């Protein structure tokens, strides 16, 4: 298991392929994404990398966080996430990740918080049918209807679907195809839509339910490794991975 990436959802656009198809794509931006901490089996009981992205206002970083960023020797980050990785795919603290972590054609899972809908009724929240518009109906058009029985059981069952807060929950969209990556601007183009609003933080990981292509950089697509790759174009993928590790 490789690490994922933290990205910002920038919005949707279209992408023309040379064959003339146009693909609806969501543009995800990766910027200043660095490893801020590593979780080890000995110390934490599990293996993971903590990534940080974004540049916060310094007044919004509290003292405890400032200490931890100082320890990692990275600039303060506004969003931190942990990704579980295999022990062989652990990265060094401070390593900067590139969008070339993913390759075009690969499938990914994208996780984010869905759009907030506020306090929503039964029709919007649970797809209830509602009531009739006419035929003597009075006032109840979008209400719930019955919520239970009579004296037996004499109560409303737990987990009864009722109005309440809708949205802003973690949603994972699986098996989205990577259309292209733009290392220059740090963009990842994903086919289709992605949960969340424009500007939302999004986690992208390799698709859980699809085989991982062999060409993907191991243990991760690092900025330094990508630069080395351009210098020595004939380099094979495993060699690049080794360079990444050696950093």
């Amino acid at each position: 298991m490789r690490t994922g990436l933290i990205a910002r959802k920038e919005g949707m656009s279209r992408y023309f392929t040379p064959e003339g198809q146009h693909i609806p794509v969501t543009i995800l931006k990766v910027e200043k994404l660095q490893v801020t901490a590593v979780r080890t089996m000995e110390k934490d009981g599990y293996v993971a990398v903590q990534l940080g992205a974004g540049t916060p206002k310094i007044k919004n970083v509290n003292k405890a966080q400032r200490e931890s960023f100082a320890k990692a020797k990275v600039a303060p980050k506004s969003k931190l996430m942990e990704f579980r990785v295999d022990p062989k795919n652990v990265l060094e603290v401070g390593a900067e990740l590139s969008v070339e972590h993913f390759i075009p054609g690969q499938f990914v899972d994208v996780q984010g918080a869905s759009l907030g809908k506020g306090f929503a009724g039964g029709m919007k929240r649970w797809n209830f049918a509602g009531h009739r518009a006419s035929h003597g109906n009075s006032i109840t058009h979008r209400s719930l209807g019955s919520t239970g029985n009579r004296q037996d059981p004499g109560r409303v069952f737990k987990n009864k679907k009722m109005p309440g807060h809708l949205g802003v929950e973690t949603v994972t969209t699986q098996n989205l195809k990577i259309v292209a990556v733009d290392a220059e601007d740090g963009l990842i183009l994903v086919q289709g839509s992605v949960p969340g609003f424009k500007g939302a933080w999004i986690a992208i990981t390799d698709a859980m339910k699809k085989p991982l292509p062999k060409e993907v950089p191991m243990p991760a697509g690092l900025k330094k490794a990508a630069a080395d790759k351009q210098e020595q174009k004939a380099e094979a993928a495993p060699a690049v991975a080794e360079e990444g590790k050696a950093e």
Partner: protein
Amino acid sequence: MDTIAKFEAKQLKAMASKKQIPVFSAGDTLKVNVRITEGDRTRVQAYEGICISRTGNGINESFTVRKISYGEGVERVFPLHSPVIESIDLVRRGSVRRAKLYYMRKRSGKSARIAERTTGHGMEDGREVAESAGE
């Protein structure tokens, strides 16, 4: 510039070098050369008709071309920057007073004619003058 605008501008720039899009508007007669792939070979087919609408902007711009094919009205919407379009030829400029010529759908025969435009934007004394292409 926000990321989306930047991304679209970059894509447009990459495509702009490949083909020239003439300056045209609704009412103009166009010949659109469309690349068609049949099996493993591609050929170019011309689709000629009147442009009745241009909509959208930037990379999302598209235009509608209407023609009468075997007595039946046919409309085709092309994304302006689609790689499927080999080239666009401006056959004739039309003089119209509207941006969208949807009224053409109800017209046929004599009333469906559009007069040729000899003045106005991009023209001088009945001749074309060089106009900087929009995009």
